[in-house]
């Protein structure tokens, strides 16, 4: 879709940011019913390994491998979702963590999928960006409609108070399982897209830190509204790149502005600081996480901010 419009580097940045957005929604689905998971990378691994095995070992086209991988991840999600029904809070965090660690051990010791060497030579999909965009549009539309549907409101009520929801006649078990399974399926999509972009995956690709990152996307973006995960994931994945480009902007400043004290010192400091290697960028990322939680513990977008915009627009239309 964008051939020739953007260079390969930008394209790969956008693809991985897009995959992060999809992964963020995989966390958002169970979170809507109050289930907090730090195992989403485990479901990504299932989707990635399942689809890559199909395309690489059986020559099945990616267009089929992608949904099949997602479906397998979804089935695994429902299986994990059953025990997850009984527990909540920190216990659920630990259960999902344990699950994703088990997936890691399994792919590490299963020689058919590459074992410790990892799965190599996965067929490269040249149109990943198009796929990512389509999946994101479908996902956001889905969650946008869900938010205003009775199903979505039922899920929100489970999040608020499970007992009250049950008393109101909501089938808590079915909805929680559904949300967990849908989340796992979306994670499977993200994993399959990742595998056919990176063309190489191993047992450490989808580790705990990735699950933790997915969690931070949603909490930073705002977990109470359906735009939150997209904003958080896109923002936090593109932020390092934006920080990098700040330096180019700095160079555009006229020399006269920065040649005298103390501006020259400030300029030098900023210039050196913005020379971002990975470690420094991640340090800034960590600082931003802490500051965000102090300033906006509910995330960037909350229910208050979104309807406010909508109301403003309606008013503008009537005026």
């Amino acid at each position, binding site marked *: 879709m964008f051939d020739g419009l953007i260079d390969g580097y930008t394209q790969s940045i956008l693809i991985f940011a897009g995959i992060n957005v999809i992964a963020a929604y995989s966390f958002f689905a169970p979170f809507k019913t109050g289930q907090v998971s730090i195992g989403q990378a485990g479901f990504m691994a299932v989707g990635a390994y399942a689809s890559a095995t199909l395309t690489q070992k059986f020559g099945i086209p990616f267009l089929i491998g992608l949904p099949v991988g997602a479906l397998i991840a979804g089935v695994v999600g429902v299986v994990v979702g059953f025990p997850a029904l009984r527990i909540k809070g*920190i216990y659920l965090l630990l259960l999902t963590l344990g699950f994703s660690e088990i997936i890691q051990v399994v792919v590490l010791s299963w020689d058919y999928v590459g074992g410790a060497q990892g799965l190599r030579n996965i067929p490269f999909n040249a149109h990943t960006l198009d796929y990512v965009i389509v999946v994101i549009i479908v996902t956001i539309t889905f969650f946008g409609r869900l938010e205003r549907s009775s199903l979505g409101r039922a899920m929100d009520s489970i999040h608020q108070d499970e007992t009250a929801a049950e008393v109101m006649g909501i089938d808590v078990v079915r909805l929680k399982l559904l949300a967990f399974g849908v989340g796992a399926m979306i994670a499977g999509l993200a994993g399959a897209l990742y595998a056919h972009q990176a063309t190489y995956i191993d047992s450490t690709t989808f580790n705990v830190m990735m699950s933790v990152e997915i969690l931070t996307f949603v909490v930073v973006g705002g977990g109470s509204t359906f735009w939150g995960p997209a904003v958080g994931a896109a923002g936090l994945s593109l932020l390092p790149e934006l920080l990098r480009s700040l330096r180019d902007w700095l160079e555009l400043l006229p020399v006269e502005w920065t040649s005298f004290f103390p501006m020259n010192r400030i300029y030098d400091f900023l210039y050196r600081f913005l020379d971002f290697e990975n470690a420094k960028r991640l340090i800034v990322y960590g600082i931003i996480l802490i500051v965000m939680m*102090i300033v906006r513990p509910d995330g960037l977008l909350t229910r208050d901010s979104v309807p406010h915009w909508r109301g403003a627009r309606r008013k503008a239309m009537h005026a």
Partner: protein
Amino acid sequence: MIYQQLVNGLMLGASYALVAIGYTLIFGVLNLLYFAQGEVFMVGAFVGLYLVVGAGANIYGAILGAMVICGALGAVAVFVAVRPVAKDRPLAPLISTIGLTIILQNLAVYIFGGQQMAFPETMEQRLYRLGPVTVGSAQLFILTVAIALMVLLWLFIARTKLGRAIRATAENHETAALLGVDVDRVVLITFIIGSGIAGVAGVLDGIKNSNISPFMGLGAAVKGLIVMLLGGLGNVPGAMVAGLLLGMIEILSAAYIGTAERDLFSFLILILILLWRPTGLFGTRTVEQG
């Protein structure tokens, strides 16, 4: 053979237990999954390395230094990532301490580089034969320090006034405050103690494995979590026993079943405990939110 394996397991378990004690102490007073605990462990190892190589300290100096610096790090964590963050939202302090985790790990990568570093030899290696078991002097040292630390901590929690204040805070913040406990101060002290112990565990791990890396924290963090759960959330003696137990289970399964299954076993234990006995082997107060 089996005795030798049991001793090895004890050795492994001692370091699991030390990391888990910090987790469980902090979870006890704050209901917080303190994610940075593994990175504090890593910082401890690097402080130890730096003190031995850079400042020429002996092993006692390294352990003491790591304890002090990691304790200070615990205090910094409280002021930076715990106190300013809203307490009524369970995920906010989790994320802010995850931010701290990322900062610490990458600070270490930035300063020391991403590779493994050799931990210096700090004591002459002698072998002792105790009946059917052979123990190296380093191993004996690690075990002694770890057990001494656990006994001291247990005495502190069980016998001192401050220890009682920590237990009261863990039971219920409001009640403890009404009874005259300065809850904020107790939380601060708990973080300092938990982090200091993790720092010592880091140095001991450096001695045991003779190399350290900025990425050693994650594995320790995950194993620490399992041990915390196994011992019962917030249960300090439980974490001690569970740590030793998990170490032995891992070593025995590696020796008699296979090394790949070793991690599988610990995670299966985690899940079985979650499903059938979420209060851990030794009980805990009930916890609803996390």
